[in-house]
């Protein structure tokens, strides 16, 4: 791709993302209100469950002094859900763009990127709703949104890498879709989202969870939003290393496979 077409196709990425967002709530009465209602309802459901059903012992926010389990849960869930939903939606995107790929020459990765970006906007709305909830509970979260955006940039990189690789592989093996369903569950439960790492008694397991890629950014997110502290330098490095290397691998694999899309689809 020459620079000229690359510049022209930046516009395509913008329009494809817009298409994703515009068509998402078509034919629904509440339309865009859903993007607010979804996180709100989720927040309420988990508040009821963690406050009255499981009665989980809330961790104490290191600096914020918060002791609200639903907020802890949502702090970790936000980046993970962005990651998981993006990848789930992106896996079929190359397959879904078959008619386009077979008839028009354009950078195929735009199909994947547009989905990740559209999800990123959804995550932004969720973050805003969550920030309001923190404010209601008396934690001044607003300055912490800046490191949170930095973290989300890295998570986006990581997500894009996974999405690129899996969506390309899915063209050749349709099981990827189902494998990912299992993979996503393993990643969810191996990340400290509905629990706190300190309750794990087996040292090896705790270490594994700390080293896991999703566990890393989930804990960084909890540090920033719930604890109100900067994640350690080691944590930042870990997240950055995962993100950059996964992105590089995903982009490389996608570029290797994409010339064959038109004939394989």
């Amino acid at each position, binding site marked *: 791709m020459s620079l000229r*077409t690359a*510049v*022209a*196709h930046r*516009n*395509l990425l*913008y*329009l*494809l993302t*817009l*298409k994703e967002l*515009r*068509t998402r709530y*078509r*034919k629904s009465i509440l339309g865009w209100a859903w993007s607010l209602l979804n996180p709100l309802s989720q927040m309420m459901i988990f508040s009821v469950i963690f406050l009255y059903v499981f009665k989980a012992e809330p961790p104490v926010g290191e600096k914020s002094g918060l002791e609200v389990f639903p907020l802890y849960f949502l702090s970790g869930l936000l980046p993970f859900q962005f990651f998981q939903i993006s990848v789930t939606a992106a896996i079929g995107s190359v397959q879904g763009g078959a*008619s*386009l*790929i*077979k*008839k*028009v*020459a*354009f950078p195929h990765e735009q199909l994947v990127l547009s989905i990740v970006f559209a999800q990123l906007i959804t995550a932004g709305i969720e973050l805003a709703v969550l920030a309001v909830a923190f404010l209601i509970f008396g934690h001044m979260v607003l300055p912490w949104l800046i490191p949170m955006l930095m973290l989300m940039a890295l998570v986006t990189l990581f997500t894009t890498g996974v999405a690129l690789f899996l969506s390309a592989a899915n063209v050749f*093996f*349709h*099981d990827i879709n189902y*494998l990912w369903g299992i993979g996503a569950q393993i990643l969810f439960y191996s990340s400290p989202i509905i629990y706190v790492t300190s309750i794990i008694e087996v040292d090896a397991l705790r270490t594994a969870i700390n080293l896991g890629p999703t566990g890393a950014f989930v804990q960084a997110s909890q540090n920033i939003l719930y604890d109100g502290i900067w994640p350690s330098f080691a944590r930042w490095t870990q997240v950055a290393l995962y993100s950059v290397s996964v992105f590089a691998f995903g982009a490389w694999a996608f570029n290797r496979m994409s*010339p*064959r899309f*038109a*004939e394989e689809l």
Partner: protein
Amino acid sequence: MSDAVGSAGEIALRVDSVTKSFRIHSERANSLKQFIASGGRNRYEEFLALQDVSLDVQVGEAVGIIGHNGSGKSTLLKCMAKILTPESGTITVNKRMAALLELGAGFHPELSGRDNVFLNAAILGMARKEIADRFDEIVAFSGLEQFIDSPVKTYSSGMYVRLAFAVAINVDPDMLLIDEILAVGDISFQQKCMEKFVQFRNEGRTLVLVTHDSGSVRHFCDRAIWLDHGQIRASGPPADVIDEYNEVMLNADRAEDGSMRRGDGPVRVTGVEVLVGGVDAPSVRTGDDVVFRIRFEADKPVEQPVFALKIATLAGVEVTAPSTRDAGDVPDTVAGVGHVDLRVDALPLLPGPHVLHTEVTGWGRTHVFDHLQNARSFDVHAGDSPETDGLVTFRPSWTWTGDGVSQRRSTP
């Protein structure tokens, strides 16, 4: 490739020894289970779609690529359009290129016409500002001003392709790749499309057309390239290449009963004669009394066979296609060897090369016993009509009326 007409000598597109093969999977491992069960190997056969194809297209040239189904012409076009990647060889594109392989690829039914114009133009590689600048032109060309803010799912299929074509043609490329001349919309819109293509050519832009319709290549192109089994068989002036192509296609099929002859019936046309004064003539004159004699043989009796004879210009325009059923002259049965004559008094065809196609069908005209494309060709030479334009003469007469009309002078 010295036979290019009107070229500036600059190369717009260079295809350099391109080879492309496809894998034909006998058992495609679409799941990991199959993939692992087959030992990590997909079993497939290689099919060579293009073998070492090289060609240059010069700036301002209109090149038509012809060939039978499966000759690799669409694969070549897709490689040129960078949709497919060849195994070996290179394709260099020096001009801004747009490929019209399918109209409206990427239209989203839920989005409005306006949004789809922007999206589709972006897919075709236009920048946002360019699209905005051309938006009014695109909409005007499609003639869909009233509907542009409705979702395209409410469009008729005609409206859909009109909008898609309007976007595609307004991408304003220096070089256009077309898969089949697009016959879309109503007559007036087709006229607009044709004008746009002609304008495009006259502006000195480059055109590559892939088609099985040799007529449009003859009309439209400076050069024809004949692709046969993935290799270039001939390249040169359209008339020469197409004649050779037609001849080979016809002979090959006479020999092995292939695609030019189809039909399953016991009746077969064995030959067509063009008789003037009882003598088979390679050429006739306008105004001659001509008998077209269709010779046939039938292995077993056939009930109510309908014979039809189609006369077309060499460029592919059908002039007439009378049948024995139209004339109410169908025998109850036909068997053995025989012929049927079609008599035309004072032949109204104007000078030019013509071809004959024959067809024998059942009474319903849906069951084809024997269809013979290009059964033979014949020339019409100037005869008793001074007319030159058009296909036929109606032997008309002119009458002048008006106070200021002077005495008419007879022209030589």
